[in-house]
């Protein structure tokens, strides 16, 4: 594949368009057919082969304009420095000659060439910009240029030396702009990926406001994957062996002839979830993401009922029915129109509230998720109610944002709740949440 197209494709990838091998082959064949002659046609052709949605097309457009922008040299400084010299000394280095004669096209080509030599497409971080500028300058022959400037100064050609110095500055500026542009083209996605990796592992309680939008995108990405992963398994699990009993029973109508076989069906249940989330200040951020996560999994969960608690416990399922997930989470965050009291966290009281009004929502098919740090302000933990809930449910999972060494320290009642849970997990990053889904799906057994 030719170098230009290859660079262009990696620039597109850098801007976030996913391009497969087969697509780049298409692009290559398109270029073979069309050639680089007509800019408009080339753009349309590459767009058809590489950009596969409206948004991608917009990105493509921008990228194309930037990539195929002519790297014209601006030389306002040398312009003002008087007429260009035509009598060139063969002693001067090639770069000096080009600068003195104002050969912008030549300089542009030399810069592009130098950039390729130092592998500009590998630029990843903005801190590397200076390095690349230096490298490109070196590659273009900075050494020779410096030597010439020195020599002119010594040989009593002050004017020439000054002029060359100005030209060197202009050259530096041009290279800087060029590297800047290349950085925009090639580096953005690498940084984006790093941020994503970082955010996946950051403690949810430490996420800053400015990263929320990004986190949401990551949650969407994760849940989309999980949704397809698990919903597909549910479908393929739908075949099995011959169910002989059922076949006999159903074929009585045909006088006992085994005419219509019946099959044993394997079916994976979708888990039915009841979530109890602590929304006191210490756990709020994590609750928020848990809810965002759970409700984005609507394709693999049968039903979710959600309760939030602090000093008391209230049901918020209806908020999710009414609004979109993100709106609902924000609404709950602010507590608008909900009879929740945001006083001291009272786990015992919350459990009692749950027992009195909603215990019958828990059946032997329900997975109960409790999210909280179990910091009960030294109140009565009422562990017996948790026990009761556990006995009624299929499974009770406690998610604690604190790490294990802190369980049971101070006012934390985690150690006392621990025996009444089927599973206790630490849950403080998006990766933890993702793993939670595996646990949830495993509890939904086959039968």
């Amino acid at each position, binding site marked *: 594949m030719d170098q230009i197209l290859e660079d262009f494709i990696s620039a597109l990838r850098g801007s976030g368009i*996913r391009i*497969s091998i*087969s*697509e780049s082959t*298409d692009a290559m*064949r*398109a270029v073979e*057919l*069309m050639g680089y002659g007509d800019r*408009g*046609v080339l753009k*349309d*052709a590459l*767009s*058809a*082969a590489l*950009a*596969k*949605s*409206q948004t*991608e*097309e917009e990105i493509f457009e921008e990228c194309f304009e930037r990539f195929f922008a002519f790297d014209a040299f601006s030389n306002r400084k040398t312009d003002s420095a008087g007429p260009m010299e035509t009598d060139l000394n063969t002693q001067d280095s090639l770069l000096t000659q080009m600068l003195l004669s104002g050969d912008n096209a030549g300089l542009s080509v030399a810069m592009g060439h130098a950039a390729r030599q130092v592998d500009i497409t590998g630029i990843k971080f903005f801190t590397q910009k200076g390095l690349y500028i230096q490298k490109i300058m070196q590659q273009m022959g900075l050494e020779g240029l410096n030597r010439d400037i020195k020599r002119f100064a010594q040989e009593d050609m002050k004017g020439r030396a000054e002029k060359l110095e100005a030209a060197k500055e202009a050259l530096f500026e041009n290279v800087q702009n060029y590297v800047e542009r290349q950085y925009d083209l090639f580096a953005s996605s690498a940084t984006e990926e790093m941020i994503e990796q970082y955010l996946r592992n950051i403690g949810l309680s430490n996420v800053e406001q400015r990263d929320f939008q990004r986190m949401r995108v990551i949650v969407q990405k994760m849940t989309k994957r999980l949704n397809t992963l698990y919903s597909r398994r549910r479908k393929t699990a739908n075949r099995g062996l011959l169910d002989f009993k059922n076949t006999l029973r159903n074929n009585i109508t045909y006088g006992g002839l085994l005419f219509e076989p019946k099959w044993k069906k394997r079916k994976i249940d979708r888990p039915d979830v009841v979530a109890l989330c602590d929304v006191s200040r210490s756990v709020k951020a994590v609750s928020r993401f848990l809810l965002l996560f759970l409700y984005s999994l609507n394709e693999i969960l049968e039903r979710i009922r959600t309760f939030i608690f602090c000093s008391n416990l209230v049901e918020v399922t209806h908020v999710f029915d009414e609004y979109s997930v993100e709106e609902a989470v924000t609404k709950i965050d602010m507590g608008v129109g909900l009879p929740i009291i945001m006083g001291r966290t009272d786990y015992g009281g919350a459990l009692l509230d749950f027992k009195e009004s909603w215990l019958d929502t828990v059946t032997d098919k329900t997975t109960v998720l409790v999210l909280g740090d179990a910091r009960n302000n030294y109140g009565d933990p009422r562990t017996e109610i948790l026990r009761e809930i556990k006995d009624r449910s299929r499974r009770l999972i406690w998610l604690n944002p604190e790490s294990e060494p802190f369980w049971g320290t101070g006012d934390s009642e985690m150690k006392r709740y621990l025996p009444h849970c089927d599973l206790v997990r630490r849950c403080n990053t998006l990766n933890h949440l993702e793993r939670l889904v595996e646990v949830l799906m495993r509890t939904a057994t086959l039968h």
Partner: protein
Amino acid sequence: MKWLNEEKFSTIERIQQGFDDVEYVCTKKIATTLYLAYHLGKPILVEGPAGVGKTDLGKSAAIYLQVPLIRLQCYEGLDESKALYEWKYGKQLLYTQILKDKLNDLIQKSDGLSESIEKLHQHDDIFFSSPFLEPRPLLKALQQQEGCVLLVDEVDKSDQEFEAFLLEILSDFQVSVPEIGTVSATSKPFVFLTSNNTRELSEALKRRCLHLFIPFPDPKLERKIIHTRVPGIPDRLRKQLVSFIQQVRKLDLKKVPSISETIDWARVLLLLHSDKLSPDLVRETLNVFLKFEEDIRTVEEHLYDFTEKSLARA
């Protein structure tokens, strides 16, 4: 596998001219994509708002190439038996009944069960052969000797399973029918898929297609389209109505009028023998290009303003 009509795709200009002749205004972008699709042998995935001529592109391509158009309208629950092939159950049953005596003759002469089955086996595939096969659009498209244009309309409305099933056909132009074997195309069909973006299509499908996005046209292009489609309309009126529609598109409407609506409106105005827009005329004909009561009310608010501007511009 052969390709149809090579010379009709020799240059981009040729394609543009050819589509103009069949009354489809083909922009350079569309022509370039068609050219590429032909030479790379790839299907085209056409996206864009409703009514900008996605389906029409397929139809016009069929007319231009002078080959049959085979259209598969997608909807939720569309499956292989509706899209690819089906056995003619009725015919199979009927034939077994008619041939009952023959079958009896065949079996009677033999003694024992195993020998009868043996005899039946010699003829077993008879009821599962091509005369009993009902080809549906996709299979039909592969069977066309002279090639065809296959239009898979609104592919986003179909289920994901169906989309996966399309992949084999789109990349190799062949399908496997278990009872018969693999059917491959004798001549490559020219495939268009259209999508309204009601859901995101899978990466795999997109990868196999060239992508073409048709946006709302700019005034110049729209005037040209009206000129081609409604040739009788006076020049001045044409400019006015296009300018009016362009302004309406900038409003926040439930359903923005697209090209097909502009054409309808132009036809209506032509029928009414009007020679220029006036607020009253527009008010009476608003329902031609607006499909919601709310939208009509919104546009009515701007009626005088818009009409005046369109009159001034033309």
